[in-house]
């Protein structure tokens, strides 16, 4: 009894107001992204997949979190807006005439990670209580992922051809990696202006950028790039995708993801403007 009572008084950590915030530091946008591993130091690029919807009233707040992180980390952070078509009541257009941002391939990932409510996010697809996490946790997860040492640099191009987009990349490993690596290319589109539901009512002409439109590879986990990699090794990959009539080609980007073939964690990523 005495043991339990003494425990009662001690098993509670009180954090004083002045001790809540620790390790204050200045941060800012990094305008010098991964250089492809030629000469200078390769920098870690982190991917935030934001599962969102135009009918989700809490999603604009999550988007604010994502954008503030983007301001903080610049091109070292790649944002991807995922609008799963399967969560129709949250992702179908909120006003008639609006573009439909949802897609079935986003639904495949939502199903894989058991995402049934929005907003949720994944940071470089790392394991964290069911993989997805609420927006309040994104900043910490991004900070942790950003602190990791990059193992590979990516450089490449995405060229617009007559009816398709051709992607060519080379991956330059700066560290050994003992496991298999897959490559995956996502087509993202910027520049949508649609009605967005929010806690303050309908927001007209709300901007949606980096919206996931299509995966170039047929398999959701991509195709094999290497079974393992050694420091200094370079691997190349090419792929192409037909241009969909619904896309505005001037607003397209291709995001290249290099992932662990076993855990699907994103090891490195590169955003390439379609030109």
């Amino acid at each position, binding site marked *: 009894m005495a043991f339990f009572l003494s425990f009662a008084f001690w098993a*509670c950590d009180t954090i004083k107001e002045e001790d*809540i915030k620790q390790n204050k530091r200045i941060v800012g946008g990094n305008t010098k992204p991964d250089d492809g591993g030629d000469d200078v130091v390769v920098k870690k690029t982190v991917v935030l997949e934001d599962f969102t919807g135009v009918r989700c*009233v809490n999603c604009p707040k999550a988007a604010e979190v994502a954008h503030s992180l983007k301001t903080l980390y610049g091109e070292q952070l790649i944002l991807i807006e995922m609008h799963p078509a399967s969560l129709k009541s949250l992702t179908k257009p909120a006003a008639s005439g609006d573009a439909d941002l949802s897609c079935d391939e986003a639904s495949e990932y939502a199903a894989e990670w058991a995402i*049934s*409510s929005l907003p949720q996010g994944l940071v470089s697809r790392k394991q964290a209580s069911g993989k997805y996490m609420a927006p309040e946790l994104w900043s910490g997860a991004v900070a942790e992922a950003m602190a990791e040492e990059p193992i590979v640099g990516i450089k490449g191009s995405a060229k617009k051809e007559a009816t398709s987009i051709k992607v060519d990349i080379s991956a330059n490993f700066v560290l050994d990696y003992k496991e298999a690596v897959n490559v995956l290319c996502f087509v993202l589109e910027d520049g949508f202006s649609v009605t967005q539901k929010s806690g303050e009512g309908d927001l007209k002409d709300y901007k949606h950028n980096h919206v996931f439109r299509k995966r170039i590879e047929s398999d959701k986990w991509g195709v094999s790039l290497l079974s393992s990699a050694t420091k200094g090794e370079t691997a190349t990959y090419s792929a192409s995708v037909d241009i969909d009539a619904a896309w505005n080609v001037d607003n397209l980007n291709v995001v290249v993801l290099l992932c662990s073939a076993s855990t699907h964690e994103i090891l490195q990523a590169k955003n390439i403007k379609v030109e």
Partner: protein
Amino acid sequence: MSAQSKFDEVMSRGVLSGNVQIDAQMYQTDSLIGAEKVDEKFRSNSYAYLQYTNGKFTLGARFEGYFKPMLGYDARYEGAGVPYYFARFSGDIVDVTLGNFYEQFGSGMLLRSYQDWNLGLDNSIFGARAIVTPIDGIVIKGVVGSYRHFWEKQGLIRGIDADFSLNDFIKPMRDWETRIRLGGSFVSKYQAAQTWTITETEGDTTYAYDLATPQNVGSAGVRFALESHGFSFNGEYDWKGNDPTVENGQIYKPGQALLLNMGYSRRGFGVLLSAKSVDNMGFRADRSETGNYGMINYLPALSRQHTYSIASFYPYACQPNGEVGFQADIFYKIKKGTVLGGKYGTDIKLNASVATALNEKQINPETPIRKAGTYGYRANIFAVSDSIYFVDANIELSHKFSKHFKGTLMYMYEQYNQEVVEGHGEFIKAHIVVGDFTYMFLKKHALRLELQYMHTKQAERDWLMATLEYTLAPKWFLSVSDMWNFGNEIKEQRLHYYYVSAAYVHDAMRVSLSYGRIRKGIMCAGGVCRELPASNGLMLSLTSSF
């Protein structure tokens, strides 16, 4: 007696009991009601519980299989296994459980571990529990363990609870007609610290901070109950230490909750008045968890749990971040032999409840309310805000007209802040009328007609529902119903939700087969809710116990 025969005799005293439940559904795509395509077409949830008791010892285990989880259940349940098993010794003074167990301290506002399959919820504790009853009237419980989180375990919970029934162990009080009980609890959660970074901009510079996360979060509560000559008065006050979570927006304000109930009852009349103030009292095994999972405690909703379908379209669940609620419940039976009471008497039930936001104030003029990494806000207990979450005022009259015919009429007025409760939608104001009539004939036969109507200018607007049930006691049950959204603004959405169901009961086995449309909505039990997706198809349910 040989050792073998002694063993055989002991074993022969053992009792094996258990139950089985299988729910399954064949899904049909129904784009009109929003029932999505289900690739597997068929899904089922199965449970089997076995318990072996021999004298003071009990062993138990529950198998669960989700192939795949039925729509509305979290996909993380997928799979099969034995997530619940225990060994228990129930002595006269000491009762010890090792393994999984369910437990509740007081009202549950500090600790409640329970299971409700309708909600897809099971937060059993895996660990050890000791219940000590040193003398009559004193019960002390100690628990340590982790909460179930689908197929894993989450957090580390330590708790102690003491309950004193004064009349039982203080001799001079034994003959009092006034009964007094006192109690107290302490619960602590351990979770390893983690990196939570927030950013703040000052002028042109952006700063990042790491938030310190408390590894041990303590909470304590006291309670009392008094009963005397038909009157009852009980209450519980709970406090929780700083606990920044995703749910509360990473604020460090300690939480508190107060629940008060006052009642009086005598033959034919009863009144219960309740009041509740909840201030930042969400308590979870994992600070990152949201939804109905990982909850250490249970915060009751002060509202009537309606059973009629349309009356429970917009049910209410307590808002753990902050809420003030009041409820009045009155029951009166008009005596038989009077004009209004008739030959059998008339029951009148009046119920009214309201829940509002807690009136939150800034901690200082510079800091916005609920800013992450601060103490969040200031609020007094029972500080009512003008932001209404929920209002329900209803009256129900039940009257038996003859030996064969009885009826119930209910009127309900509801206000429901859908945006706060469900995270989307609008502020709904609805009028609901229900008529429920039963005609019994040929001894074992009964026909029941249920008519329900909702009028509202919000959401999906007006609804009408009719149900006809036929019961051939005690084995057979048949039901046909249709719910019609005739007032929907969009003509194409004025849909019918037809539903037919048949059930057969034999001893302790019940099997039911149903077919029809299920409307997308929210299902609640005890103030905890889950989203129910729209579906269409054939459902099978089988339960049996032995």
